């Protein structure tokens, strides 16, 4: 026992000495304070209060606007009201691109993304539901018959021109079509309300308080979800899959907002902007920036003296954005070019950010991707 105490004493002594000597160093060269003083909780607060919750609030307002436009259309079915309804739909769809990536907490619980934006939509299923009038939109098997893509079909795809489409809403099946559209809208509105109220009533505090470093901590979860969204939904879903890069042949039917046909590139750009803004911690609808993945990388970098990863990522996002800006709507890019070379080149630029996020960023932050519960050595 004496020996153990002796050993502990020596170790304490060693520890004390080593801490002394560095204290001295710090006094001698105070400007070389290489401590990473990055506060994860400040980043979480910025995410929650300045980005996520305001984005949800804006989306809620746009959803409400969409429902209002529908009510006007329902009361008086005519071409100008249809155009107004489509404009509100587009407005809300763009707004959606700013919240789609936050599949965490309440959104994850209700499967927000899966319920709001599964495409290609199943137009035959929708036709059947309208005809029979019996359907349960809360079933997961019916996710391909609701959300924004279903509205795309209902507002843009029922007929070849506006007269044909309006005929559905004023003919024999008028009631059925209006009812189904309304049910889709109300389902979206109520899902949104659930997610938003959960965020503001409790989850925000849970999210911010969980500021640790475990695999279940908010930062780790959020980074995983963020990268998952970028890779699966933005890169693959909105571009890669319709381009056919995973199947060998193009699938124009899988373009987002297929029936409208001209806005898929705009929706993509909205989503890419949202992704980049989140990376930079840019407050929603403001040019102000707070603590973010970018500033976290910068803080870690001061210690490592490595490459400026946040700048490299921003450059890559910008390059991708510029390439997309030169494209026309994805549907026509894919349908009119064989192979769709310029879109493939743009896809490559979108793709290049994936390893930077998935390898360099998470490695710098020591966050594990798709956390697997197993031993290491």
């Amino acid at each position: 026992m004496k020996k153990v105490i002796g050993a502990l004493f020596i170790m304490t002594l060693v520890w004390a000495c080593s801490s002394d000597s560095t204290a001295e160093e710090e006094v001698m060269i105070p400007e070389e304070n290489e401590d990473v003083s990055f506060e994860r909780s400040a980043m979480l607060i910025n995410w929650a209060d300045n980005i996520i919750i305001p984005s949800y609030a804006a989306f809620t307002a746009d959803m409400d606007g969409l429902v209002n436009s529908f009510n006007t259309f329902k009361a008086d079915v005519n071409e100008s009201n249809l155009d107004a309804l489509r404009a509100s739909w587009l407005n809300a769809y763009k707004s959606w691109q700013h919240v789609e990536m936050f599949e965490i907490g309440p959104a994850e619980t209700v499967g927000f993304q899966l319920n709001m934006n599964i495409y290609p939509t199943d137009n035959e299923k929708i036709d059947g539901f309208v005809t029979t009038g019996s359907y349960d939109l809360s079933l997961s098997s019916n996710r391909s018959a609701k959300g924004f893509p279903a509205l795309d079909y209902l507002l843009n795809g029922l007929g070849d021109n506006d007269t044909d489409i309006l005929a559905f809403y004023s003919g024999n099946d008028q009631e059925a079509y209006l009812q189904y559209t309304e049910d889709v809208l109300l389902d979206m509105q109520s899902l949104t309300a659930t997610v938003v109220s959960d965020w503001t009533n409790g989850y925000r505090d849970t999210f911010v308080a969980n500021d640790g470093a475990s695999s279940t901590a908010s930062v780790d979860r959020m980074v995983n979800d963020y990268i998952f969204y970028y890779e699966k939904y933005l890169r693959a879903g909105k571009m890669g899959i319709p381009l056919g890069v995973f199947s060998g042949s193009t699938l124009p039917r899988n373009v987002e907002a297929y029936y409208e046909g001209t806005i898929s590139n705009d929706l993509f750009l909205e989503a890419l902007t949202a992704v980049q803004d989140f990376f930079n911690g840019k407050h929603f609808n403001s040019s102000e920036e707070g603590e973010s993945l970018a500033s976290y990388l910068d803080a870690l970098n001061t210690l490592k003296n490595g490459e400026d990863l946040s700048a490299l990522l921003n450059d890559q996002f910008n390059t991708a954005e510029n390439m997309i800006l030169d494209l026309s709507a994805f549907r026509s890019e894919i349908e009119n070019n064989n192979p769709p070379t310029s879109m493939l080149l743009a896809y490559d630029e979108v793709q290049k950010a994936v390893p930077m996020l998935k390898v360099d960023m998470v490695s710098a932050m020591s966050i594990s991707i798709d956390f697997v519960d197993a031993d290491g050595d």
Partner: protein
Amino acid sequence: MESLIEKYIKAPVETATLAVFRILFGLMMLFSIVRFWSYGWIDKLYVQPELFFSYYGFEWVKPLGVYTYLIFVICGLAALLVSLGYRYKLSIVIFFLSFTYIELMDKTTYLNHYYFISVLSFLMIFLPANASYSLDAYFNPKKSFHYIPRWTIDSIKLLLGIVYFYAGLAKLNSDWLFNAMPLKIWLPSKFDIPLIGNLLSEEWVQYVFSWSGALYDLTIPFLLLYKKTRPYAFVMVVVFHVLTRVLFPIGMFPYVMIISTLIFFDESFHSKFLTYLSKVLHIDSSKFYNQKTFKELSAFKVKMKYIIVTLFFCLQLAIPFRYLLYPGELFWTEEGYRFSWRVMLMEKSGYAQFKIVDGESGRWFYVDNTDFITPLQEKQMAFQPDFILEYAHFLKNHFEADGHNNVQVYVDCQVSLNGRLSTSYIDPTIDLGKQKESFLHKNWIIPFKDEIKGI
């Protein structure tokens, strides 16, 4: 000279030391198996995956579907029997075979400490660990020996010494010593650990951890051997391993090492432990103190044992240096990286996107890795060339069976090592379907752009 060595090797020491080691080793292994099972890892790692990554030459070792559980049952039972010392020879052979089979099933789960268990259990086949405080010795007085030759205990000390010392040698490189990498990446992310959490982001702490870690590994075998420093050394062992347990997800390894180093303690320590044990369990231990010295019956058997154990240690000393036969940076190519006690040396991760080209139609597409392999497999595959090649072959076969012709497989692979920006890892113009696995250097690995000096 020879007689001196002979004398040393054969010098009788009390069996107690080896008996304690056997009992604790068996129990720890049993616990490890139960723990592994209870976490659902058998199902997740060995039953569910569609593809398993094999070691070169051991492609025939595969999980057996649901019967994989049976292998774990056998392994756990063997561990228990080893601990009890019942039909020890057979039990330890079965343990070695079943444990090694499990480790060979999928190299995704390769860990140095699993390799350590395999190697140690192989060595234990040749040691008379059941000569005391075992059911074998209890029921059969002929098998009970108070003393055993000294080499049997020292061989385990030597193996432990190699593990530590080689782990220390591996740390003598510029990344570890002069950049505090990868600890500089790992430690700051543990900021929420009580007491020391805030210190971990201090640069000097990262250097202290790096240097003291290397120093610890290089010196601890000697400090444990030397009687005067032994108690301090053991405290260091405990502190070091507990610290690694707190900081990193390394499962049972710290406990295995802490318990194993008990073998360095005196016979009296182990005797006291056993006396205490017999009192608690009401075992009549007098049978074990018969003053007999263990002696192999046939001279041939003795000779064979010496030859095998000597060869075994020669291999142990040589294998970690096989990397010298390969060109390029070891950490980058990983040619000769495994089985060398290179523990926690790298923060390495990668991203691999495979492109399948139909050689006849020219049609191409990318592979969604999640269709075929688990996240853990993808993570390991993305920065290790032998995984990448095996996976490419799997993809070629899969898509040719799917109706594609003359399939070519290309990969865009980006790898980051110890905080360096990721760069291309595999030549993207090489059709991996045409490359063969072998022990030769893989010339389609793009050479490392930086330099890491040292061993």
